[in-house]
C-alpha cells in the first residue's frame, strides 16, 4: 500500500463515516432516512447483462438465501425469429454459477435477471390473511417474518414466481430490495456485484436520480403488464418473448 500521509488525513474521516453507516445495526443510526422521501424501484438493462450470475451469488451471500430458493435469478432466452411465442428458456440453479456456453445459431440469445418487482398494486400483499406482508411507505414489499403463518397464499398469488417458503424458518421469504442497505445509503447487493451495470437501484422520488432521464429516452417495459400489478422493476429492451 502506498498511501501518502496527506491523503490519509483527508480520506480517513470520510471512510469513518462510511464505516459508521455500515456498522449501523439499528434504524436510529440512520436518523436522516425518511421513508416518505423515497419510492424505490430498479432498472435492469437487458443488453448489458452477460449472465455471469454475480448478482445471484451476491444476493445469496448478503441475505442468507437457502440453497434451491432464489430471491433473484437469471434466465437465458433463446428465441427463433420463426417462433417468437415459444422461446427456449433455461435457468440452471437460477444462474448462480453462470450458464453453459452457447454455440451460435440462427436464433438470438439474451439474459433476463428477475427478482421481486415490488409492485405498487401487489397481488401478494392483497391476499395475505393476517397482514404479514405489505408494501412499506417507501415502496418496498416486505415480509414480517415474525408474523407470517407460512400459509403460502402469497406465493401462489405472485405472478412472477419470486416468493418461496423458507425451508427452515417456515415463513414467506423474498427479495427485500436489500432494505437494510438502501435505508443506509448503500445500494443493493445485486447492484453492487453486477460488473456491467445491468442492474441499477432507482429512487423514483429523487429528482436527481438518473432513472428519470433513462425512462424518457429508452424503450422500457415491465414483466406481465397485463396483470396490472404496478410492477416497479423496469427493463430496458425487454423482448416480447419474455415470460
Amino acid at each position, binding site marked *: 500500500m*502506498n498511501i501518502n500521509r496527506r491523503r490519509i488525513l483527508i480520506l480517513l474521516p470520510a471512510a469513518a463515516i462510511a464505516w459508521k453507516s455500515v456498522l449501523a445495526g439499528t434504524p436510529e443510526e440512520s436518523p436522516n432516512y425518511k421513508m416518505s422521501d423515497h419510492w424505490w424501484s430498479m432498472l435492469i438493462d437487458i443488453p448489458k447483462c452477460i449472465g455471469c450470475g454475480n448478482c445471484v451469488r451476491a444476493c445469496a*451471500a*448478503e441475505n442468507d438465501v437457502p440453497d434451491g430458493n432464489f430471491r433473484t435469478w437469471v434466465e437465458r432466452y433463446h428465441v427463433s425469429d420463426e417462433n417468437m411465442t415459444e422461446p427456449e428458456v433455461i435457468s440452471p440453479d437460477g444462474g448462480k454459477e453462470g450458464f453453459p456456453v452457447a454455440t451460435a445459431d440462427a436464433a438470438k440469445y439474451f439474459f433476463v435477471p428477475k427478482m421481486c418487482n415490488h409492485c405498487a398494486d401487489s397481488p401478494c400483499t392483497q391476499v395475505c390473511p393476517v397482514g404479514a406482508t405489505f408494501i412499506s411507505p417507501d415502496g418496498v414489499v416486505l415480509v414480517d417474518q415474525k*408474523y407470517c403463518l407460512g400459509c403460502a397464499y402469497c406465493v401462489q398469488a405472485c405472478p412472477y414466481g419470486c416468493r418461496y417458503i423458507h425451508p427452515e424458518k417456515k415463513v414467506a421469504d423474498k427479495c427485500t430490495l436489500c*432494505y*437494510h442497505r438502501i435505508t443506509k445509503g448503500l445500494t443493493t447487493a445485486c447492484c453492487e456485484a453486477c460488473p456491467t451495470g445491468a442492474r441499477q437501484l432507482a429512487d423514483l422520488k429523487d429528482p436527481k436520480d438518473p432513472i428519470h432521464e433513462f425512462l424518457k429516452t429508452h424503450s422500457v417495459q415491465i414483466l406481465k403488464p397485463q396483470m396490472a400489478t404496478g410492477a416497479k422493476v423496469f427493463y430496458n429492451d425487454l423482448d416480447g418473448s419474455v415470460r
Partner: protein
Amino acid sequence: MSFFKDAGHLFRFAGLFVLAFLVFLVVRHFVVPKSFGEYGHYRGASIGEIAAHPIKFAGHQTCEGCHVDVLDVKSKGKHAHVNCEACHGPQVKHATADDPSTVKPVLPDTAVLCARCHTASAAKPKGFPQVDPADHSNGMPCDTCHKPHSPGMDAGGAK
C-alpha cells in the same frame, strides 16, 4: 313473562356468545402488537427490524476510502465500473475490523473468477470482451498476463 321461561335456554346460549366475545376483545387488546396499524395493516415495527439486518457487502465507497491507489489504477482501465466486491466478495468484516489487516480477504483464483464473465458464449452481448479459455490461455491463471484492476493489455495493463 312465560316467554322468558320457555326461551330461557336460548338466552343462555346467546349469553355464552356474548361472554366469549368479551373475552375475545380483552385477549385481543393484549395480544395484538402495539405497532400494528402504524403505517397500514401490518406491524409497523417490522420495518425497523428488517432495516436492522446485518450487512455483508461493505460497498465500494467504503473500500475506496482506504484503497485509493487501487482506485487510481482501476478508474483508468476497463474495470472502472466493476465494484471491488464483485470480484473480492463480501468484505464488511475486513472493512469494519478495528485493524483491517487482521482480517485479510482471500484473493480470488483468477482462473475461476475471470472465466465466469469472460468465457466466450454466443449468448453474451457481441461487444463484450470474451475468449475461449482453452484457446486463449491454455488453462493458465488470467493474472499471469493481465492485471485484474486494469486488465486491458494495450492500456498498460500487461504484466
